């Protein structure tokens, strides 16, 4: 009787471990950080791409209802594909669009803006990528929506899509 209980327990443990690992096989193991919603944005400052004047980010969000930070670079192909969405967003008066130019050469960044248009009210540069890491980004393009209380309302990882644009409209209206 006792032996049976031991065997049953061992079998039960093996079945449990098997199910655990089997389920784990089909679970995506790519972690996407989503810890930032409703957290205060980190205060940072950066140089303006054109004037090279140091600007504190806090100054840029005080008056507007929603501020959107878009992290981009001229060498980033997905950034090109989302650029027309950013141009559309720049027409929305309720949004202040701020660009953060990630690990880019200023000449290339300026050429990109000249070629495709400038949707941003200000473009700050992040030459070593540390500002983006401080913000909680981990790749580009990334887009953060920030409300007037300087809280992150939503974060989009990867290029913006039509669905994302609808979400942005819902949030900002």
């Amino acid at each position, binding site marked *: 009787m006792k032996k049976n209980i031991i065997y049953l327990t061992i079998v039960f443990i093996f079945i449990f471990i098997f199910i655990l690992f089997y389920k784990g096989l089909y679970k995506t193991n790519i972690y996407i950080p989503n810890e930032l919603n409703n957290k205060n944005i980190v205060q940072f400052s950066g140089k303006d791409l054109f004037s090279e004047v140091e600007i504190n980010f806090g100054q840029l969000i005080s008056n507007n209802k929603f501020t959107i930070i878009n992290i981009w670079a001229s060498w980033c192909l997905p950034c090109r594909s989302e650029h027309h969405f950013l141009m559309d967003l720049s027409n929305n008066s309720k949004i202040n669009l701020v660009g953060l130019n990630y690990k880019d050469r200023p000449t290339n960044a300026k050429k990109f803006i000249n070629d495709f248009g400038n949707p941003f009210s200000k473009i700050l540069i992040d030459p070593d990528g540390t500002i*983006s890491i401080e913000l909680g980004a981990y*790749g580009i393009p990334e887009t953060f929506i920030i409300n007037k209380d300087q809280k992150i309302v939503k974060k989009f990882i990867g290029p913006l899509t039509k669905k994302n644009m609808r979400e942005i409209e819902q949030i900002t209206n």
Partner: protein
Amino acid sequence: MKFKKFILLIFLYTFFCQGDLIANNNNVLVNKISKNLRCLICQGQSVYDSQSDFAVSMKLLIKKKIKEGNTEKQIYDYLKNQYGEWISYDTEINKKTYLLWLFPLLLFIFGGILIFRKVFIK
């Protein structure tokens, strides 16, 4: 005269090498912290091992934070706040992870009991 020269030498040595020593200590700490962080781009590697843009910038940020006077714990807490608990290899014990911590212990105790019964109780 010899003594004066000796003192001058020590003074020069400390003057020029102090910066190096501090920089070296900081680098050791940067390496230590980055070995305990998971790279979010190459998710099988630590930030220390990875050469992705994310990892390179992360190492620079850690260096900057150390220079600003942050302690090791403050840096971990900051990064956990930004990227979540998952970024750290050192998993905390909380209600989500207690099974992870307790399960090996339970197996160990259960196995110990089995061996004890087999060997000592006949």
